[in-house]
């Protein structure tokens, strides 16, 4: 038996959650006041994910960098690996929202895409 303490992020209430695990399986969620808390707790202890947002160098752009994001969530444990890949990447301008910057970043199956547009420097 293992227990983990979390704070629910679904609403401003911020319920303190206690999750009980047995052999990596969630057997009990306590402290939540609604169903969303239970769903959040289960995902957070078994497979937490986050969207990573950052910038990449933009070649010839009117600004030196352009905003990027992972198209969807990636495993939380891969955040810093994804950041390393993003910091090594660069993109030719002009850039449009949705342009793929890195395919399948760090083997997550998720692309890093531009989340802002950027014109070429005049």
């Amino acid at each position, binding site marked *: 038996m293992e227990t983990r303490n979390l704070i629910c*992020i679904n609403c*401003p209430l*911020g319920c303190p959650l206690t999750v009980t695990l047995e052999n990596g399986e969630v057997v009990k969620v306590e402290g939540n006041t609604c169903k969303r808390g239970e769903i959040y707790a289960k995902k957070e202890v078994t497979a937490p994910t986050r969207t990573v*947002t950052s910038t990449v160098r933009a070649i010839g752009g009117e*600004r030196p*960098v352009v*905003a990027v994001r992972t198209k969807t969530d990636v495993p939380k444990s891969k955040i810093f690996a994804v950041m390393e890949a993003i910091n090594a990447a660069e993109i030719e301008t002009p850039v449009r*929202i949705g342009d793929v910057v890195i395919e399948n970043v760090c083997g997550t199956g998720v692309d890093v895409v531009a*989340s*802002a547009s950027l014109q070429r420097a005049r």
Partner: protein
Amino acid sequence: MKREIVIIGGGPAGLAAALAAKEAGAKDVLILERDVRLGGILNQCIHNGFGLHTFKEELTGPEYAARFEEKVMETDAEVWLSTMVLSLSKDRVITAVSREKGLVTIEAGAVILAMGCRERSRGALNIPGFRPAGIYSAGTAQRLVNMEGQMPGHEVVILGSGDIGLIMARRMTLEGAKVKVVAELQPYSGGLKRNIVQCLDDYGIPLKLSHTVTEIRGKDRVTGVVISEVDDRLQPIPGTEEYYSCDTLLLSVGLIPENELSTGAGVELSRATNGPTVNERLMTSVPGVFACGNVLHVHDLVDYVSEEAAAAGRAAAEYIANGQPERSGGAEIPIAVGGGVRYTVPSAVDPAHMPELLTVRFRVGNIYKNVYTSVYFDGERVLHRKKQVMAPGEMEQVVLKRADLLGKNVGKITVTTEED
């Protein structure tokens, strides 16, 4: 030059106001934006979490802005970029300047104020010490990192736990900086819960509530700060000083509506919000001048900015079409606040001119658990809703129905919190 509706500011509020004004049938809409692009502060807010209410998906700031920008561009609303408004008069004459057009005078039929807000700066805080390099507002640091590609420093302390400070704690960490601590003067954070978990807890960054910076060390560049605990009157407690070495101090200590133009036009400001007082049509004390977004009162979610701005856009379009509605004496019902409610926007309602459903937004001044939000029409309680928690950092709202107020001779509306 004469124009019908002129919107000052092309950020989220200005864009939503322009779109709604066009959709309401306005013929001539002009947006004046001082930056080289539309979108305002959203351009530097590259994190996700925008648009959950509006688009049912989690967008980044630039993506959210682009959705509105595209829609505005599909209309024939006109946009002047790199155009700085210098003044606005009480008869709605705008003086603006741009490299392309020079000095321009515009007589506007209606004006929508959508200038946003600015950050409170070190000067507002009274922290003793020299004035070394390395002290930034969180928003300035955000601009440097996300738009200029520059890192303001490597070892960081953040004062204030507003959302921008929390977001920057994560952003600086991802870019390789060491964020040592976030100190918050109040016993609670002013930021959203999800930001505390995803920006601080995820990266093991400590949040010290009831703490503040009492000394900044370093002469040319910040070398460290002293953080002290504060008592319940927010005064530093001697003997609790702790030293943190750092080269950068970020300040995330509040936002103030940007109302220099408004005051120049004689617009009456609220002492609670620092923004204009407005009626049910979001019109200020100056006829034909409307306000929305962070220039009206500081919001935490952009979705609500868009919603509010759309209402201002519709009201301005109606003003152009029908002129100033006749107001019979005493028709405007003031909205009073009680309990923990600090203010409401709007602060007065004329039932004859309000929409069918009017959203009244408000904030509370402290953390309240298991209290009721109540609305009274004179002595009669018309709304009573339990809320598990209310916090100063989270804007609340109630909806008033026109049918409930029209012809009822209500003298006063009260929005309050109650124990039972």
